[in-house]
């Protein structure tokens, strides 16, 4: 064993020297990709199309690689190839799960290597600290007469926004059961109607769920919680010494009351009817409602399938406190992209009504950052969701992560 330890130490020193070699990215004044994006910014759509076409023709061996967690990109790429025949067969979609994709992005950033031509990722803190501050992922603003994007969503460029809400089986639960978020802390009583069957994805395996819990301790969430508290308990919240604020109290009591910790939102929603008897309420992406299979047997071959499906499950967007959590997925171009004009054109395409609808159109729970594209019928507008939900805020997450996550871990351990 001593020999092994000695080897480790020697190898560690050797590797430290090796690892400190020339792999660090030293940001240059302007990279070729940055210059291309700047140029693309000033081009008309026709000019950008011509530039992308020329770029692909000049590089016949290259494929336009698009890495993304959402399969909407796959469908958008297929439509993109149909629209631009010169790109047919020249694109590739790579499905990348966030936690598995981040190490690849970091490795590519450290080595300043090619990873893809287009990247769509979530996790605001990772994006800011690991990718934007190191200038590895770059934004292109596709705004024009048809594409209206809020200034706050331009840099970094938001592609699609998502929400996670409290979903239930409409036949057994219904919108009247969950009216105030404090019900989910398990408080009982005739008038209080505590809810005990909330299913929540384990935050130790799902970053978005961890971000939501962290955000619940933010000042804006505390305001919402205090208001809902007064309405629910009929009195103002009085500071308690064991909690830094009302958000901590809610997080602790909510975690303690979660009845079931699921491991996949998709699978959980898919089998929602299996939990009809226990009246389960599942915190999951609203877009996952499409996976609920209650009507699958009867309608799977029918045009009515989707409409029927989303009526089988329900959610309440009138909950006192908050309705859920809103977070973004950003569409960006790596500094090492080989086909930057094609990337800009594709970004412009998925922000247009045609491209967005090809990827995510007609489905609840997807919202384009192009404010000209409305949400689907029956789904409130993104602006409304942002008012009613807790919204991911990278500044707050960065500032409070160390403290809140320790508190959450303690709550998860039942202490």
């Amino acid at each position, binding site marked *: *064993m001593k*020999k*092994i330890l000695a*080897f*480790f130490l020697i*190898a*560690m020193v050797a*590797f*430290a020297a090796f*690892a400190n*070699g020339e792999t660090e990215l030293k940001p240059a004044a302007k990279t070729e990709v940055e210059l291309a994006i700047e140029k693309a910014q000033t081009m008309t759509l026709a000019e950008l199309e011509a530039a992308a076409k020329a770029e692909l023709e000049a590089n016949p061996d290259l494929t336009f690689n698009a890495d993304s967690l959402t*399969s*909407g990109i796959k469908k958008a790429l297929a439509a993109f190839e149909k629209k631009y025949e010169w790109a047919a067969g020249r694109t590739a979609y790579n*499905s990348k*799960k966030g936690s*598995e994709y*981040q*190490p*690849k992005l*970091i*490795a590519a950033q450290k*080595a300043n*290597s090619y990873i893809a031509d287009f990247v769509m990722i979530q996790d605001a803190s*990772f994006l800011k*600290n*690991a990718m934007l501050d*190191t200038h590895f992922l770059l934004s292109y603003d596709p705004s024009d007469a048809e594409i209206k994007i809020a200034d706050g969503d331009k840099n970094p460029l938001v592609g699609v926004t998502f929400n996670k809400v409290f979903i239930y089986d409409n036949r057994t639960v219904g919108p009247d059961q969950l009216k105030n978020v404090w019900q989910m802390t398990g408080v009982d009583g005739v008038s209080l109607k505590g809810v005990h069957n909330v299913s929540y994805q*384990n935050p*130790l*395996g799902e970053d978005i769920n961890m971000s939501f819990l962290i955000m619940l301790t933010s000042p804006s969430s505390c305001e919402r919680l205090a208001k809902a508290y007064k309405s629910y308990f009929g009195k103002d919240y009085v500071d308690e010494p064991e909690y830094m604020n009302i958000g901590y109290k809610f997080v602790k009591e909510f*975690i*303690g*009351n*979660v*009845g*079931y*910790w*699921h491991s*996949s939102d*998709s*699978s959980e*929603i898919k*089998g929602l009817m299996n*939990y009809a008897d*226990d009246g389960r309420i599942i915190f999951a992406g609203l877009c996952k409602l*499409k*996976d609920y299979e209650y009507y699958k*047997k009867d*309608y*799977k*071959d029918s045009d009515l*399938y989707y409409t029927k499906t989303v009526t089988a499950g329900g959610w309440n967007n009138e909950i006192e406190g908050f309705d859920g959590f809103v977070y973004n997925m950003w569409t960006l171009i790596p500094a090492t992209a080989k086909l930057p004009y094609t990337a800009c054109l594709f970004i412009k395409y998925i922000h247009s009504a045609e491209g967005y609808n090809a990827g995510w159109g007609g489905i609840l729970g997807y919202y384009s950052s192009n404010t000209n594209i409305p949400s689907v019928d029956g789904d409130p507008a993104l602006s409304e969701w942002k008012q009613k939900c807790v919204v991911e805020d990278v500044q707050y997450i960065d500032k409070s*992560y*160390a403290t809140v996550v*320790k508190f959450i*871990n*303690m709550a998860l*351990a*039942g*202490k």
Partner: protein
Amino acid sequence: MAEKTISPLRSRFTTYFSKPANIITICFLLILILTVVLPLSTLLIGSFKVNGNQEAVYLGRDVSDGDFTFHHWVELLTSKDFSYAKIKFWIPLGQSTLMALIACFVAVVFGGVVAWFITRSNLPCKKFISTVFVFPYIMPSWSMAMFWENFFKNTQINAGKGMLQALTGICVPESMVYGLFPCAMALGLHYAPFAYILIGGILRNMDANLEEAATVLKASRFKILYRVTLPIVMPALVSTVLLVFSSSISSFTVPFFLNKSSINSGNNFIAISVQMRSLINTGFTKGQGYVLAIILMLFSIAILTVNNYITGSRKSFTTVTGKSGQVSLVKLGKARIPVAVVILIIVGFFAIVPMFSFAAESLLEVPGDYRTLTLRYWLSSEPFEGSNKGDTIGILKSMFMWKALGRSLLLSLIVSAIAGTFGILIGYAVARKRGSRAATLVSNLAFLPYLIPSMSFGAVYLALSYTKGFTWLDGSFLILILVGSIKFMPFASRTGTSAMLQLSGEIEEAAIVIGVPWFKRMTKILFPIQKSSFISGYLLPFISCMRELSLFVLLVPSFQTLATSMLQEYSRTGLTQSSNAVNLLIIVVVLVIQFVVNKLTGASIDKGVGGN
């Protein structure tokens, strides 16, 4: 003519390298330092530095990416802030150790007992039991966890109706479904084939004269077991404990999947591996994750030391000599049939029922509704409707699936060929140079890849593939072969070493005396004698590679590269029917390969124990 003088140093050098065992030792020492020690050192370095900007933000002081720090160790092991160290490290470590020990107990007892019945008794249906006993190992460990949950869950614990409740109305308590105990059981059953193969291989080769001599000397049954049988199977027993403990304590999917009960139920169990994955996957706390990975490895190294102590303190484990040996079977008498029935029920339940369960799940349009049988997740040429899955079609009609399966197969074959051959060579060198420091070092280093968490191991090679001079490895098939061969070498080196240690030196010495060259000695004498054990050394990496995902997930260029990455993609996107179908397909392919190997070579993974 002046006589040429050879310097003593050169003479020693020439003599040293004239022995194949020495050449093998030195070659593998170099290979293992490059492929194992360097990746390990990155974990060690990572635990003492700031890993990225997010971690710098977490530390909240004037530090930046790459700075040296003791913070990760201090924070994880001692922080009293919200009882952080206790909750994040000490309690999970204690509970996970208990889980791993129970898993070892289940694996050794279940696998060892069945191995004994198969090899040393006149039990009926041996071939069938032996064949199906390895099925749980062929399945990914999480599928055993999934089966466990699907079988035992019930409406009394708000988990939906499971098979047991549907069939009998029985609702087991929550602690049987979620938490530490079911995790330990699922892992123990998954790894029981390890014990079966390793212990059974030795029991089969053991000369029964040893036990019979003890019987003649009026030794009691317990004494024979304690003083004769157990010492002989001790290397296999310790190897099993080492492999099962290391695998169980670092297993992520099983404890993550079977941890669904409420915090207040008392069954909520957060394993150390779940804590490690959450720390490593979050940019804020990667360093703490590395600390945890190192500590887990130290645990396993401690067991490795015990293993070395036990195998090193005994003079010999030779059970195969040039002399004749015989195996006499214990007659079970009236207990023969009842014992067989009990074993068949238990083995059938954990080895065959899960396969039927995967098949059924792949054939049901609506999970749990047996009126909705369909073959479309296997055979449909039309993209699936009603979901946002793009152009997903039946797996047998999908060219992507066939290509992925072909690549998985090719990768597993190459990896098993490399790892298996390396294992035999390492086993040879270790056995022939037993006791030498270099051989012990090679033996230990060859086992270390097993102790490195798969995803971290993959991450190290990912970083290498992005480094200047090595970018040709990025996204290549070669890098998958490289990591697979190194990561799965421990299986082969353990089996190779055990098999070589069983061989008496006199067999090879006799061949040396009559001038048989080394290659011929290996291929014509040593390999044929221990063929069944060596074939296990090839088959274990093959099976592990076929069902591996975490190791390759960062390195595959696309989710369509391997069968397991497609399985994960289906599972992630909610296409459970397709993921069950792929799971079943992988198991069937492995079984077919095993069958073909058996027909071509006469050997199989279970034959070493008693399949024939």
